[in-house]
């Protein structure tokens, strides 16, 4: 693949540019640090709601600490604070190295960094002041939406510049990234403006469903998989197993993923034939996902030892196992039979955590585990702490997801049996208690990571002086 590229790509400079010319390492580090800061803000919001549910919220009745408002900070901080920032940092590393060209303009990069932090902080402040927009995953107050939209446009321009100069077929990673830039822009515009200003009721529900789903499927997923197609072959020092399966994976995702949004609102007054369509394309995409997962395990085949010895690889492949599980779960829960029982329950909450933390956050934490030593020019202060980070995150996630999924079944059965409403809250208590414990484990893992990072940074300073 690489050889082919250099033959067709006549514009590739004769002498390879150095890494320093390509990558603004300081910016990558800043993005990662910002991401970690928002990860902690998001986890705090999660805890506030989790403690509220088990009726041990010490801050109950204080407006600025209202668990409802912090619940929205929880999801928005993870999507726009942690994931977006970490992805942007990763893109500033991957795209210049892959295209052998720097991004359009370093000053623009810096401006985007500042603008994006403004968007995220303003969102959090707006939410805490009670100015949310009534759109799930898009609660960003309406006045921030145009700023975020502009930010996404600038991001696309900045990264598309080096990609556009490349000639000939692109590597898999860039298919996903190019598509992600345009999809993210369109998804954000569709979700934040159409149901707010143009349509209401069931149509707004259909658009809202598309937005929830596309945000995961067309922003987070393609950036995540593009990242895997870049880092996995580099770490394993061998090419992706099957180029054909890469093609099937990308084009299958591109066609089926945007068609599924309405599966978030099954049994609503949205026309039934549209609900059936969403269900069928969801099941179709699960088959596509299977080909991608097979492709990556085919790549690992023969190097199984690396799963244990190479920590970033372990992060990545654990995420992929979770990805397979969450997609398997999805192909079941999307059916009307399952929906009747599990919709509105913690089953869905478990699913969401498994996707957003178990897959994409874990991949990004793996990338950080790999890149921080390179950014700081210093090996990790403690491998043991790195292991703790992994095991607490992966283990905590497995417990949290299983616990919530199981709890969701009990809630659904309680409702269908026409038990008094309080009964469903009563039976949820043990599940909610376990969720808090698993959340604390994940939190502990991230603390270990941040402490380890701080000590590593200290070591790097000592070495420099």
């Amino acid at each position: 693949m690489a050889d082919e590229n250099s033959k067709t790509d006549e514009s590739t400079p004769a002498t390879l540019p150095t890494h320093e010319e390509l990558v603004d390492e300081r910016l990558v580090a800043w993005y990662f640090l910002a991401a970690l800061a928002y990860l902690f803000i998001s986890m705090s919001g999660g805890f506030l709601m989790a403690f509220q549910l088990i009726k041990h919220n010490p801050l109950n009745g204080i407006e600025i600490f209202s668990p409802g408002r912090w619940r929205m900070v929880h999801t928005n901080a993870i999507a726009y604070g942690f994931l977006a920032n970490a992805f942007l940092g990763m893109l500033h590393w991957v795209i210049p190295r892959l295209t052998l060209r720097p991004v359009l303009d370093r000053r623009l990069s810096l401006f985007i960094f500042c603008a994006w932090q403004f968007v995220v902080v303003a969102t959090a402040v707006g939410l805490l002041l009670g100015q949310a927009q009534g759109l799930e995953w898009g609660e960003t107050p309406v006045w921030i939406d145009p700023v975020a939209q502009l930010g996404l446009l600038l991001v696309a321009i900045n990264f598309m510049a080096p990609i556009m100069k490349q000639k000939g077929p692109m590597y898999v990673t860039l298919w996903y990234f190019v598509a992600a830039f345009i999809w993210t822009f369109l998804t954000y515009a569709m979700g934040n403006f159409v149901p707010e200003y143009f349509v209401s009721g069931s149509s707004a529900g259909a658009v809202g469903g598309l937005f929830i789903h596309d945000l995961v499927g067309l922003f987070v997923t393609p950036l995540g998989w593009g990242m895997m197609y870049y880092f996995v072959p580099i770490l394993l020092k061998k090419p992706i197993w099957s180029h054909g399966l890469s093609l099937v994976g990308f084009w299958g995702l591109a066609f089926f993923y945007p068609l599924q949004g309405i599966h978030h609102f099954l049994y609503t007054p949205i026309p039934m034939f549209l609900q059936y369509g969403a269900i069928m394309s969801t099941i179709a995409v699960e088959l596509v996902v299977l080909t991608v997962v097979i492709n990556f395990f085919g790549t690992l085949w023969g190097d199984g030892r690396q799963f244990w010895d190479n920590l970033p690889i372990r992060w990545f492949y654990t995420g992929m196992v979770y990805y397979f599980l969450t997609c398997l779960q999805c192909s079941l829960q999307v059916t009307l039979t399952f929906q009747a029982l599990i919709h509105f329950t913690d089953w869905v909450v478990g699913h969401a955590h498994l996707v957003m933390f178990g897959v994409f956050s874990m991949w990004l934490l793996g990338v950080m585990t790999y890149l921080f030593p390179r950014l700081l020019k210093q090996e990790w202060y403690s491998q043991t702490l790195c292991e703790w980070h992994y095991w607490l995150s992966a283990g905590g996630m497995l417990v949290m997801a299983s616990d919530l999924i199981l709890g969701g079944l009990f809630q659904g059965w309680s409702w269908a049996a026409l038990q008094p409403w309080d009964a469903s809250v009563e039976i949820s208590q043990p599940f909610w208690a376990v969720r808090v414990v698993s959340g604390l484990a994940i939190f502990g893992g991230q603390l270990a990571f941040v402490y380890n990072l701080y000590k590593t940074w200290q070591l790097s300073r000592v070495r420099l002086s």
Partner: protein
Amino acid sequence: MFESKSGVFFVAGLAFFGFAFLSNALVPAMMYRDLPEKTVEELVNPNLRYQFEDLAQRYPESFKKVYGTPPEETGARSEWYDTKIAEALRLGRKVYVGEACWHCHSQFVRPVSNEDLRWGPVSTSGEYQNELQRPVMFGTRRVGPDLCREGGRRSNDWHAVHFFKPTDLSEGSPMPQYPWFFDGSPDKPNDRGLAIITYIQWLGSWLESYPYYEDFVKSPVAEISLEGDAAE
């Protein structure tokens, strides 16, 4: 095409997204184009008016502080109330969204899981074609019960006490307290308190079977207004 910039950009990026938007978003929008979107003013109905006047009687001081005094003359009084209800509904929705009520309470009754037995008639499209459902408040999680048939099911003072401290009324409720809807005690709701109660009482107030659960005496407000208008 499959690996080129233009293929990915135009086919996967633009065309597939456009196809999905067309089939999944524009189709329902076109289907409901004959169902015009109601403004908040058009949503005011006698059932809701009954609840709103009840608020005025239960909390006269708070009500006066927020909305002022209604005019004496019957016709103007009726119009005044309707305007204030619309105002309360708008703010009420803002509070409902801003406090994330919709992340723990849904607003639609499904035709499955015995939901119509628990809450009332299954939701229909027409119920959502209005300004207060933009974006729609379907919701995706039920920690607490569905609310789209909640209007008239409980009294205004029940809601006031419940918002102030939910566990006082439903022991074991994990719902957070909302003391900032009040000036210190549950008998003094402020503008947000009156608005959110009005909004909750609106939910389902348009149904003929309203309220679904309790003994119901038809609201006399509509007739009184009509008589008043006729007398002039």
